[in-house]
């Protein structure tokens, strides 16, 4: 193993968690395999940020340029390709985030290196990397090989690797690379914050979340009733927003809200990682789902395997009886 190169991700002057998660994994792979860790930091006016990575990385490779003021894969791609090529990095790690997904496949094509996306683990055995990823919405694990390629690339799922402290004394290195102007073919315009609705699901101590299993809009009333009974608010997973049954500000998950209520009841939610990442810190999590293998049961503390249309009515009765 030569070098593991990690593309850092930051927004509004702060590294995103994925940066430390990837560096932690890179550190452990490099320590075991006799390699080094290089963190790549592209940005505009980001000099102060580099020092925050020197405990984890052997080198922090910085390119500070106005073209990096906002993330644009059309600017990142040619520069990063040049860096990876010239350094001969063995493994390139990029976040499986909205930014990373927009960049990694084109970089892999340009460099002609194998790419495994959304990986939850990376191993290095007998001189070759392998990666573990999930398919079919988290129901099956898939182990991926790279055909013994000298350079490989992965995009890493958020929260797959818990960040750890390290005590390297890495150096900060200015990259002497040419950075292009933002191309006219693709230009950043602006960031638009999500609108704020009438209910803030992050403020409620009890959240009842509904997913695809509810099937029809008219069945949403069952969820409203349970929420009312338990003094909570109704939230949901993505398919419910896509269907237009609840507004976007009720969506829990990576592209929606992160909630940490005392009680989270997931009804008919399969529990894909995008959803789980937004609710896994709830104090008590209850899942009701008819598929015993639904990933939501791994995140939950209590589960009922059953048809929600049979469970919910009788659950309301039982709660009523206990109160009587």
């Amino acid at each position, binding site marked *: 193993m030569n070098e593991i190169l990690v593309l850092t991700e930051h927004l509004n002057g702060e590294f995103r968690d994925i940066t430390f998660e990837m560096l932690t994994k890179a550190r452990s792979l490099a320590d075991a395999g006799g390699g080094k860790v290089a963190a790549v930091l592209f940005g505009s006016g980001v000099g102060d940020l580099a020092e925050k990575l020197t405990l984890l990385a052997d080198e922090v490779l910085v390119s500070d340029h106005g073209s990096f003021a906002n993330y*644009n*894969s*059309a600017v990142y791609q040619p520069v990063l390709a040049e860096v990876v090529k010239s350094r001969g990095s063995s493994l390139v790690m990029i976040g*499986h*985030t*909205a*930014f990373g*997904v*927009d*960049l*990694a*496949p*084109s970089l*892999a*094509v340009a460099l002609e290196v*194998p*790419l495994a*996306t*959304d990986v939850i683990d990376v191993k290095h055995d007998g001189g070759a990397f392998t990666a573990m990823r*999930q398919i*079919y*919405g*988290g*129901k*099956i*694990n*898939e*182990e991926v*090989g*790279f055909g013994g390629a000298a350079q490989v690339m992965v*995009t890493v799922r958020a929260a797959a690797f818990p960040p750890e402290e390290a005590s390297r004394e890495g150096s900060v290195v200015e990259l002497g690379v040419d950075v292009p102007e933002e191309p006219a*073919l*693709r230009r*950043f*315009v602006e*960031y*638009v*914050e*999500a609108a704020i609705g009438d209910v803030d699901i992050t403020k409620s101590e009890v959240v009842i979340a509904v997913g*695809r299993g509810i099937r029809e809009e008219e069945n949403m009333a069952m969820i409203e009733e349970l929420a009312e009974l*338990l003094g909570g608010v109704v939230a949901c997973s*993505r*398919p419910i927003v*896509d269907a*237009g049954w609840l507004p*976007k500000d009720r969506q829990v998950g990576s592209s*929606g809200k*992160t909630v940490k209520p005392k*009680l989270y009841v997931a009804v008919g939610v399969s529990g894909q990682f995008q959803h789980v990442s937004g609710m896994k810190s709830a104090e008590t999590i209850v899942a009701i789902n008819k598929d015993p*293998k639904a990933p939501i049961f*791994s995140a*939950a503390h*209590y*589960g*009922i395997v*059953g048809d929600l249309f049979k469970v919910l009515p*009788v659950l309301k*009765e*039982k709660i009523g009886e*206990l109160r009587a």
Partner: protein
Amino acid sequence: MNIVVCVKRVPETAEADLKIASDRKAIDEEGLAFQINESDNYALEQALLIKEDLGGEVTVLTAGPEASEEVLRMSMAKGADTAVRLADDAFADGDAVATAQALAASIKEMEYDLVLTGCMASDDGATAVGVALAELLGVPHATYVVEMEIADGKAVVGRELEGGLVEKLDMKLPAVVTIQTGINEPRYASIMGIARASKREITLKSASDLGLAAAVVGAEGSRTQILGLDYPPVGEGAEILEGTPAEASGKLAQVLKEKGFA
């Protein structure tokens, strides 16, 4: 405005009990229902909306076995004008980049202004074909698009980032845009449309038709390989409250009461 929509036929697995096939390289497809990949369906709808607004033709394109023609026919029933299937065993079992190679070779033969596809396939979850395709075509791209307008040879799009933040950007056409679910309300095909589409011709293209060597597409052309599938390890997981719905609900009500919620 000529639009190519790349679509994929996938099994419906959200509520299915999946079994791994004996070679451990794929799942056992027996008994599963198949349909158009969800985000591809939104991409198709977006193409049809743009066509209704600006005119032009919509071509649906897939790389897959004969069975995937049902997805192409359904797309034509909704309003797509032509359909192309990349039909060659050489295309089978390709990774995202190898699949993009085949799609790119086919699209290069067409006159197009815009390529739309879903942001992610629900089966392999690669989230990579669209961006790889753009790179191979040498055109700009945007992913996870939840807002889209076409004007003056440009696509102005909103990308969905984490936490509900939307990144707006503009791109010169032609471009590849990967569509996120929820951007529109996909229509249903009419009975008449389905009847008409059943008689329509689907253009078939082999690797040699596209001037592609087998070594750059399909399993042979893939730089990654599936080593094996497995069921995710069962972690700590939930304490399952057993019994009939009434018994399980009774236990849950008790738990909720003990914790002060009921």
